[in-house]
């Protein structure tokens, strides 16, 4: 029981919900960039929500099945095809042994999640099957997939219908990324703070699993200071600190970087704030050059948004169990 990779796409990796618990050693949480879509894909094929799936970026892989299975593709609109015939996204469909799954051009979003009944059964490393390519850890041999790879499948269950459009979630245009102003907000002037939230930014080409860089907004003005002992001399430098997932750092005050699932765990650039967990999935679906705004929220609003996101996942779960 396996899937064979005929063509890998641009960068296709095995991901599950991630590898928490090792950040103190510099090992990031990894896992799907859009975990809402990853969970939904698993639910559709009858897997545990935490099963490992394939995360494809911008371009789909071509896959051959050695066994009959149920498949679902969620996340960005990357139209799946079985032996050349198009299948819907966000909906379970069957494949037979020998069938080939390929994809059309990406219509929207950035990342598609390809779940197969039984889950991708690569070895668990430090508690997760997720691939962390920089550290050559987890997934299939710690790397993005290549033509000729064969991935084992677990024991699968039955498929479960479709997720209707009103229960799906994707970024708006511009994407609105809610941010809790953070630790070093006081380092920038009040005017710079206002401008930061007023500007429409664009995703820079440097946008990957480590972090998303944004450009096009006005450079930040800093409040003058004497650099604290142990920090660098740039006004954006701090004494090296830990970065939570979602941290917004602005090296030299020019281009904000939102740290994502394969983030560096700490460093010497000030964090302007933290993107709330509920909106990190949206970032995973942004293509380079797409517009985005940062929206200021309070801690209470962030907690409410987290609750809403869990309720959205529960609605998908309830719908599919009906």
């Amino acid at each position, binding site marked *: 029981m396996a899937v064979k990779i005929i063509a890998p796409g641009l960068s296709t990796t095995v991901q599950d919900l991630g590898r*928490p*618990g*090792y*950040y*103190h*050693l*510099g*090992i990031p949480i990894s896992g799907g960039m859009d975990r809402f879509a990853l969970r939904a894909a698993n639910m559709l094929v009858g897997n545990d929500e935490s099963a490992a799936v394939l995360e494809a970026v911008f371009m789909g892989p071509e896959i051959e099945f050695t066994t009959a299975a149920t498949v679902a593709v969620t996340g960005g609109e990357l139209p799946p095809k079985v032996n050349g015939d198009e299948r819907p996204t966000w909906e379970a469909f069957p494949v037979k042994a020998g069938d080939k799954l390929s994809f059309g051009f990406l219509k929207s979003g950035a990342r598609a999640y390809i779940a197969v009944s039984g889950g991708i059964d690569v070895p668990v*490393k*430090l508690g997760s099957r997720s691939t*962390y390519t*920089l*550290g050559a*850890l987890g997934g299939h041999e710690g790397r993005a997939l290549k033509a000729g790879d064969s991935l084992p499948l677990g024991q699968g269950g039955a498929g479960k219908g479709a997720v209707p459009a009103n229960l799906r979630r994707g970024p708006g245009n511009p994407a609105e990324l809610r941010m*809790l102003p*953070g*630790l070093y907000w006081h380092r920038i002037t009040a005017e710079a703070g206002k401008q930061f939230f007023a500007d429409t930014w664009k995703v820079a080409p440097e946008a990957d699993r480590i972090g998303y860089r944004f450009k096009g907004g006005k450079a930040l003005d800093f409040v003058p200071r004497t650099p*604290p*002992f*142990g*920090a*660098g*001399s740039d006004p954006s*430098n*701090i*004494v*090296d*600190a*830990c970065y*939570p*997932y*979602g941290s917004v750092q602005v090296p030299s005050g020019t281009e904000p970087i939102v740290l994502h699932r394969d983030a*560096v*765990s*700490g*460093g*010497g650039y000030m*964090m302007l704030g*933290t993107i*709330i*967990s509920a909106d990190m999935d949206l970032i995973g679906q942004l293509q380079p050059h797409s517009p985005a705004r940062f929206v200021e929220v309070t*801690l209470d609003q*962030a*907690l409410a*948004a*987290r609750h809403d996101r*869990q309720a959205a996942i529960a609605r998908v779960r309830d719908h599919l169990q009906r």
Partner: protein
Amino acid sequence: MQPTPSAPIFRPIAERAVLVEFGTTLDHAAHDAVLRLDQALAAQPFAGFREAVPAFVNLLVEFDPATTDHTTTIAHLRSLLTAKATTRPQPALREVLVCYDAELASDLATVATQTGLTPQAVINAHLAGDYAVFMYGFAPGYAYLGGVPEAIRLDRKPAPVRNIPAGSVIIAGAQCLVTTLLMPTGWWIIGRSPTRILTDDPARPFLFDVGDKVRFRRIGRAEYEAAL
């Protein structure tokens, strides 16, 4: 208000995390307070505790907001701070080999020029440093060592240089680090180490524990090649 080791500031940095700040400048008392709280928390976690990440002068505490909240988390952390101070275990001393061969130390000459020392004096100063592991950060196994002598402290480079090989011994300010991956760095490359930082042991994946003391021992190129 500035945080101090005896009066830390608790910052709700994310909807699922609190950052405990014991100071804002590199300071041993603040770092000791970080390690004490990290250890006390490991010994007495609270319901919903997920993970703690120590840095130089602050500790990141992540929790599950479905189980607990910021107020409860901060109250628990405060109670740990006021509890009887736990004695820290004796730190281990780790030896790290370093080869300063010019081919493996692309910035040694520049560091010498900028500090007004000879390359030999830079090497002697680096070997004389009293190093301790302050934190893991940035990438897997990147153990931040504090203790670079004053004479060779330089600001970071203006821009990072890409594709610096694993094993590079790099310095910036009071910090030193032995890299474990091919990564960019804006620090100064003064040598290369064959010492394996990655242990392949899942229970303890890296050589150092935070708090360990570290001593560098100089080796020649032949010994470096043999040790690889």
